[in-house]
């Protein structure tokens, strides 16, 4: 068999091109399959929270949660010229939202009066597939493999705010200015403040979990409600945990489930 130099080079070129393309293609396909199949818990621990809406009906309970969280994490209260909480620069980790705003897919014209206009506690959902993590260009936010917390590393945040745009729950706030003057004398020295130009959000009280404590909101809600815990925190991957048992017993809903983010905060209506 005699082959011309030209046809030989053509074939070599085709093989090289094919091999060069196949690697990244197969790699991407493999990754997509892995991510698609790994829905829900990837075998590891996943912290989750159940919020009992009827038990949080009293304003003191919700206010106690927010106050405890914001005090524990040095979250400033920025007010505008009229003394109202600034709508443009508000920083919040856990706050109240109207039922129909928190659950636009669940609310309809005949929603029960007990839920309509009813404020609901909302916070970061520590999603199984967090969109904020996908868009972060510096890996300043990432999903912690050991317990599923969507973490923030303020040392790496460059303030691009892609994550704010990506989060469908509005769970992230941007520090438009140095927060310290708005904390006055109430700075808790053990926890860092933030600086101008970084994004912040709920961290599921990662620093308290480290010391074996439950999140501040959970603890404070129990105290404010007087016994019966309105918030239940625990490991979703453990079938015997209090949260897993509660979820198997009571019907619960999630915020904007259809988006595929896989929220890990559940609500009893």
């Amino acid at each position, binding site marked *: 068999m005699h082959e011309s130099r030209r046809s030989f080079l053509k074939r070599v070129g085709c093989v090289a091109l094919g091999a060069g393309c196949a690697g990244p293609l197969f790699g991407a396909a493999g990754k997509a399959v892995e991510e698609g199949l790994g829905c829900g818990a990837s075998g590891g621990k996943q912290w989750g929270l159940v919020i009992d809406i009827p038990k949080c009906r009293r304003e003191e309970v919700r206010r106690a949660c927010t106050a405890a969280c914001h005090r524990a994490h040095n979250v400033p209260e920025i007010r505008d010229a009229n003394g109202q909480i600034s709508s443009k620069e508000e920083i919040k980790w856990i706050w109240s939202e109207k039922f129909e705003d928190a659950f636009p897919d669940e609310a309809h014209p005949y929603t029960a009066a007990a839920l309509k206009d009813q404020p609901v506690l909302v916070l970061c959902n520590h999603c199984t597939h967090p969109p904020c993590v996908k868009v972060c260009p510096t890996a300043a936010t990432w999903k*912690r493999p*050991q*317990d599923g917390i969507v*973490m923030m*590393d*303020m*040392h790496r945040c460059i303030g691009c705010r892609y994550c704010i745009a990506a989060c469908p729950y509005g769970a992230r706030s941007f520090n438009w200015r140095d927060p310290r003057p708005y904390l006055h004398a109430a*700075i*808790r*020295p*053990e*926890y*860092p*403040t*933030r*600086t101008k130009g970084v994004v912040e959000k709920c961290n599921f009280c*990662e620093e308290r979990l*480290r010391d074996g404590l439950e999140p501040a909101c959970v603890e404070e809600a129990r105290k404010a409600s007087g016994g019966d815990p309105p918030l239940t925190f625990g490991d979703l991957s453990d079938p015997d945990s209090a949260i897993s048992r509660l979820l198997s017993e009571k019907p619960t809903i999630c915020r904007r489930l259809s988006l595929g983010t896989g929220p890990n905060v559940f609500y009893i209506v």
Partner: protein
Amino acid sequence: MSEKMGTGSEPLRENTGQTACREVPVPIFSRARSDTPKIIVGLAVALVALTFPLWYALAAGRSEPSPAVELPSGVSQCVEPKDTMKAHHMELLRQWQLAVVREGSNEPYVSHAYGTKCKMSLTKTCLGCHTNRANFCDRCHSQVNVQPACWDCHNESKEK
């Protein structure tokens, strides 16, 4: 014309009237009104001026002594020996930061020199002893003109 061209380049050059341009280059050192000495002197002066900090420091030994820092009372040693801390504290802090924030480690730091254990925390461990930032951290940082951003977020102790 054609006759001259035929003779080669020599007669042609003579007739162009641009002898100054076509002159064979003379070595620069032999030119009567050369700027060379001025340039060389200028370069030498510039070189000396630019390297002044280097040779001055060499000639004078240590240019400036380390500032005196206020050490915490009631504690005999830091997590590592003094010289290690002086030279590498920023690397140690970076290592702690990565371990605690990125990896979520709850393990204590074990001192390489002493074997003692401590919590990997700037606020609780370091600033727990070094309560006065101005009289400790800032003294050296100001002298070497570095502005670490630690205190933009990490809180100083309330006691001064």
